[in-house]
């Protein structure tokens, strides 16, 4: 009997192709919007997670002053090289420690120049920051302690200043410092905070202190934890060592901050997840509106087809058979709209993930959910018109003009 109702409903929808399509449009847009937004949001979350793990999820960043999040804080006592050495010596859970300085500079080669960032660190800088060599070599512990005039450049600088020529062996000017390019770093792309991680020149810390900064302050210590150690325990250890070295009494607050990249990662992906949920909810409202559209058209259709319903009742259709026919019509409309919506969403997601350069994450759960929701919309909003049709008085319905 359900099969018969389906057959009758399909015949009816076929009779009114244009109207059927327009009725479905609301559902199509709703389903497509929900799936596309959730897919894009999933892609963005995935991207953030990927980037953070590429940054090195074992990374802790220690900076002077109190930090509420990423960004510079000025005005508090900087670290010294000895602080970094003490951490490395006293905390066995650390795999590597890199005291780091950053400064902006104009890099000049031949007649090209480029505004960039100088990062200065020890030979461990590359390990801690999870940077891989592309060509040439990295600087050695010897070069760090002697303050050699060498540098390793990021992909952006290589492109901007050297183009197609080989940069290894060339001499690059950074403000007043002239240094030899000994290697290039593999590209890493944009960070999750949107800054270009390849726009940097890395030089040995000693070189930086002597020839660029003119002092021995350290603005940041990056440490890499060994795999499998408790982040909280390491953080506590670092705080203990540094509080001791900075002579803080028990009543004083920390005047430095230990940031965990994992924490930042989960915070950022949490934010994108909330945004995705929010956008999805807004899109779900349009699905609901699509359902109301179906109800509207079905009600009009019942009025318009009153005589037909009267005829069906007269030739022996039972009340529930008429109800089922109209209900199935509504469900077929809405679920068929849902299927078209899924197809539209897949196409839109593929195009948009390409344009926005986020990964395409196929989310079967949201597709199934959106489809079931669209079918449910048909049942809920189709029931009222269907009941109205089924309860018509056949005599009056036959007389209806």
């Amino acid at each position, binding site marked *: 009997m359900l099969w018969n109702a389906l057959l009758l409903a399909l015949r009816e929808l076929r009779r009114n192709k244009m109207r059927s399509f327009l009725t479905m449009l609301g559902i199509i847009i709703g389903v497509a919007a929900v799936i596309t937004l959730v897919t894009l949001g999933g892609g963005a979350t995935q991207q953030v997670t990927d980037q953070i793990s590429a940054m090195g999820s074992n990374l802790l960043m220690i900076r002077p002053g109190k930090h509420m999040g990423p960004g510079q804080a000025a005005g508090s006592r900087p670290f010294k090289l000895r602080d970094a050495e003490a951490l490395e010596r006293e905390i066995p859970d650390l795999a590597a420690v890199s005291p780091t300085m950053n400064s902006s500079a104009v890099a000049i080669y031949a007649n090209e120049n480029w505004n960039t960032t100088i990062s200065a660190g020890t030979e461990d800088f590359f390990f801690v920051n999870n940077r891989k060599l592309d060509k040439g070599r990295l600087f050695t512990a010897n070069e760090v302690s002697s303050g050699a005039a060498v540098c390793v450049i990021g992909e952006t600088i290589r492109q901007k200043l050297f183009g197609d020529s080989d940069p290894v062996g060339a001499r690059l000017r950074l403000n007043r410092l002239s240094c030899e390019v000994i290697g290039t770093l593999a590209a890493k792309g944009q960070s999750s905070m949107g800054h270009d991680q390849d726009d940097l020149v890395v030089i040995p810390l000693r070189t930086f202190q002597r020839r660029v900064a003119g002092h021995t302050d350290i603005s940041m210590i990056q440490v890499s934890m060994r795999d499998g150690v408790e982040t909280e325990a390491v953080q506590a250890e670092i705080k203990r060592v540094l509080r001791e070295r900075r002579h803080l009494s028990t009543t004083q607050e920390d005047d430095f901050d230990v940031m965990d990249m994992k924490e930042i990662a989960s915070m950022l992906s949490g934010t994108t997840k909330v945004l995705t949920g929010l956008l999805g909810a807004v899109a779900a409202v349009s699905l609901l509106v699509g359902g109301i559209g179906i109800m509207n058209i079905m009600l009009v259709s019942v009025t318009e087809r009153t005589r037909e319903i009267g005829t069906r009742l007269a*030739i022996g259709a039972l*009340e529930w058979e008429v109800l089922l026919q109209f209900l199935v019509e509504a469900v077929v409309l809405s679920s068929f709209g849902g299927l078209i919506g899924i197809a539209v969403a897949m196409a839109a997601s593929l195009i948009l993930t390409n344009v926005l350069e986020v990964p395409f994450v196929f989310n079967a759960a949201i597709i199934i959910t959106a489809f079931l929701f669209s079918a449910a919309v048909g049942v809920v909003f189709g029931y009222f018109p269907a009941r109205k049709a089924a309860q018509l008085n056949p*005599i009056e319905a036959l007389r209806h003009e």
Partner: protein
Amino acid sequence: MSEKETPSPPASDPTPVIELRRITKIYGQGDATVVALNGVDLTIHSGEFVAVMGPSGSGKSTAMNILGCLDSPTSGTYRFQGVEVGGLTRDQRALLRRNYLGFVFQGFNLLNRTSALENVELPLLYRGDSRQVRHERAREALATVGLNGREKHTPGELSGGQQQRVAIARAMVTNPTVLLADEPTGNLDSARSIEIMNLLCAINRDRGVTVIMVTHEPEMAAFAKRTVNFRDGVIENDLSNRGGV
């Protein structure tokens, strides 16, 4: 036209198809009540061809609705093939219509943009017949009304007379006991009307189907073997028509 009161039942079939006893139908309540039928007695035997006539408001439509099990009487008994049907529920009456009654309407009431074949097979669809059975019987019924080759035509592509023939095929496809026709020629010119009346006569004669037809054209009523005239909610006279075709 020679006439005699209350025709005698054919001896071969003692149980009448339709038996109305003291049927009343009252619409509305309190001061606004309208007595549509006021004690109607009517017996129709198998194989009869009855024309129901009367001015509007005479109660003939109400009587037809009750005969067609579309409506229930307020009081009185209605036996269909000996079975009391006055107190049936809505769905029970629908099943009775589905299995024993065929309907032909003045306005044809075919589904638009739907082929003749699909229109005719509609009652079989509700009975749950298989696709093969449906198509076979619908084709047969269309052939009976002289519309072979028009199975794929939609009502819009058929003339009024052809549409009414599709409607008759739809009414006949279930092999009903009784065919109820409500002014079947009301929307047709005289040539088409005579065609339709000949078809109804043939169905009545060849298949033994009892035909009850409402009309207000005496020329059409003349095709019937018996004419029942309604006035003011009662049967004014009930005449047998010797000249019935």
